[in-house]
């Protein structure tokens, strides 16, 4: 399968020298869901607006369905691109009914297609209601159906669940994924929620400061984060530096044996809080500083002699008290070597 969308060296600058996006390169395959993950203000919405055709790039090229739709200073207008979009505020037309909203992009109007989509999102009984008469989750489904109605090859979703409450969000996450897969529509899904990004995406692009930090499958992004930002954002990772010695690796946790075969003499290691295991040890180097109960787990803050602080998430059947001295036990495969490939 070929790429539906190719983005090459895309850049967008705003006034006062702020750079919204820089050197952004990625592609979306037909039927693939790409989630774009990053903190607010990292440039993810700008990226979507460039692809949709609401902004003009300062450099780079966007190719959609094999043809150039945007490059420096000139663009194909949004209405001629055929890319669907779901807005953060849904942007449903308040003067139109549910069915009229869904049929808005269909010319000539095709009631059959509208009913098909209403069926798909399970809102057939609501077809003649107005937007303010249906719930937030229903509005979200209508917005998706409206974007899907002209059967675009690609839909863009801009933080579509940010206006919904948690349970609704979890339910819709599954539903949206199913609908996109069922209709074989490629999608770019922007979010700042990393569990959303990991569970929805076939691939994930992590963005910070206008640049793509990593573009990979969710598993790879989790297992092999490229840098500290990705590891921190994806899994609130703890960090540790390691220096090569004759026999192994020297760290603040003692000498370690790592599965690293590369040439570097200094390594940046990441450890996810849920990988950390603790053992009681009166003379252990690490002190338990803080504890909060999360239900299944306890969440601890650990303080190293150097002042470094780690987070640990330990099942609730092993309990440690604040002020207790402990030792950290970690099998070598739990150390993630950052930027090793």
């Amino acid at each position, binding site marked *: 399968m070929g790429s539906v969308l190719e983005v090459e060296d895309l850049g967008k600058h705003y006034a006062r020298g702020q750079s919204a996006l820089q050197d952004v390169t990625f592609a979306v395959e037909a039927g693939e869901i790409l989630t774009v993950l990053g903190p607010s203000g990292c440039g993810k919405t700008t990226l979507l607006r460039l692809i949709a055709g609401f902004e003009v790039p300062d450099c780079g090229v966007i190719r959609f369905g094999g043809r150039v739709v945007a490059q420096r200073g000139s*663009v194909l*207008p949004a209405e001629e691109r055929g890319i669907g979009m779901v*807005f953060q505020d849904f*942007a449903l037309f308040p003067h139109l009914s549910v069915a009229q909203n869904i049929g*808005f*992009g269909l010319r000539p109007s095709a009631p059959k297609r509208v009913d098909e989509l209403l069926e798909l999102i399970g809102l057939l009984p609501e077809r003649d209601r107005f937007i303010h008469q249906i719930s937030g989750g229903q509005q979200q489904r209508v917005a998706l159906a*409206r*974007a899907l109605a*002209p059967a675009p090859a690609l839909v863009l979703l801009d933080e579509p669940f940010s206006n919904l409450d948690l349970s609704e969000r979890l339910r819709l996450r599954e539903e949206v994924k199913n609908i996109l897969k069922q209709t074989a529509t490629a999608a770019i899904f922007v979010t700042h929620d990393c569990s959303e990004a990991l569970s929805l995406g076939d691939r994930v692009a992590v963005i910070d400061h206008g640049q793509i930090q990593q573009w990979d499958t969710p598993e790879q992004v989790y297992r092999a984060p490229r840098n500290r930002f990705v590891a921190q954002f994806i899994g609130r990772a703890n960090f540790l530096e390691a220096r090569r010695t004759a026999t192994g690796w020297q760290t603040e946790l003692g000498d370690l044996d790592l599965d690293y075969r590369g040439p570097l003499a200094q390594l940046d290691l990441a450890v996810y809080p849920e990988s950390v295991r603790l053992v009681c040890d009166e003379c252990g180097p690490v002190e338990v500083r803080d504890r909060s109960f999360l239900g299944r787990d306890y969440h601890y803050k650990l303080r190293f002699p150097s002042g470094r602080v780690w987070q640990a998430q330990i099942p609730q059947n092993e309990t440690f008290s604040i002020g207790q001295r402990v030792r950290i036990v970690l099998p070598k495969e739990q150390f993630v070597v950052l930027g090793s490939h």
Partner: protein
Amino acid sequence: MRNIVEARPIPRTAPLPLRLAAGGVAALLGLPLVYLLVRSLEADQATWSSLFATQLAPLLITTFSLAVTVTTLAVALGVGLAFLVERTDLPGRGLWRVLCAMPLVIPPYVGAFCYLTLLGPQGLLEQWLATQLGVAAIPQVRLIGFPAAVLVLVLFTYPFVYLLVGAQLRGTDRSLIEAARACGQGAWQTFWRVTLPLMRPAIGAGGLLVGLYALADFGVVSLLRVETFTAAIYTQLTTRYDRSGAAVLSAVLILIAFMVLWAEQRLQGRRVAQLRSAWRPSLPVPLGVWRLPALGAVVGVLGLSLFLPMGLLIAWTIESLTDESAMAAVWTASYNNIWSGLFNSLGVAMAAATIAAIAALPVALWSVRYPGVGANFAYRISQLGYALPGLVVALSLVFLGNRYLGWLYGTVAMVVIACIVRFLPEALQGLRSALAQISPSLEEASRSLGHRPFSTWCRVVFPLLWPSLLAAWSLVFLSSLRELPATLLLRPAGFDTLSVRIWIPASESIYSHAAPAALLLVLTSLVPLSFLFVRARAGEGR
């Protein structure tokens, strides 16, 4: 293989047709004013110095003191009524809430006319004194002059303040009051330190409306014989035929109006924004022993500003139906009867409202969707009419029409144009805020679904804007319907509107000839006013 870019640049500025349309509207609205100022500068030295020496000081004193007194009293009355109705346990406040806004249906010059029929020359009081006691008229007790004008203007303009402050009070969250009480403030301290400061924007906006009205008023001061600027300009024009003198006086009046606007901008600078997440209405303040006196005050004000004037209008209308000469002059005259007046009024108001609503649209679009220096300038120019007395607008059109638009001068079109220049800003305000509320993402959604800008406009923006367009139309219609001074100056011979049919017999003290037109005007005003009122309430409830 790379395709050639099938692309065109996105326009960063407004499309040219929009800029041309909006610029054209602004130019047409600004032109008469500029020309008036030019004419006043052309006036010879002698005109300026004689006016400055003889008339200016008394005119300034009278006009200023009228505006200041009326604004102060109207603000006090409006705030007091709004507080009683919205925040206390006044008996029957649901009814009073609606009735206190009702004096708005009576144009102030109609109010002045009503009081004249009671206390003016040959009014009911004088008739009664003459027939019952055989006492001749005592000119000293007639209700004319400065205090009379203040009374009438306050009674019929306080609803501006009342409506705005009332909306502000209803919108204030109870928790703000409770927070003040929790900080140890008593009821009075809470009023002075929280409630009143929160009302300040509404008081400022309402006070500005009243103040500008008092400066611009022509009908009340001319009927009650107070020499203010507008009255002097009218005299200058119609009895002395001195156009240069009128232009000079108008220039000074324009200057005063701009000073008021400028002062208001300085005072209003800070806007109070309220966070309303979980809003709850305020609990009423118990009045205790003051409940009955407060009720008496509300009923008293309404008696003077609503019940008495309406009663008088109805009584005099019945009188006109029983009196043979009045019957003939008002109702059955084959030429220029009351129905042709109504027809003319409706025609002028409809034409002005339609053109103003359409013409305001490009200016609103430009200034909201493509803000910038040009858009802002066009917007400010189009707003000028807001601060200009109708008489001044009419005068500038007299000059312009006389010299350059001979074919238009003396036609109904001039009256319509005056109404547009004067009242288009009212339409512009509403359209601007409506456009600002239509989220740009709606337009983007339509574009992403394959609709071009024009199709997007027709299918998304226009349907959403339609109710506001209708409201803007109603507002201009209502104002044009009541317009008096411009109509008097610009109408073709024999073209009577309802306002003219009130003013002419009223100024000659033939009350039974004026009352039916006044009643008809009030009743006609009720339709657009109730539409606007219902719309405002619905908007608040959202």
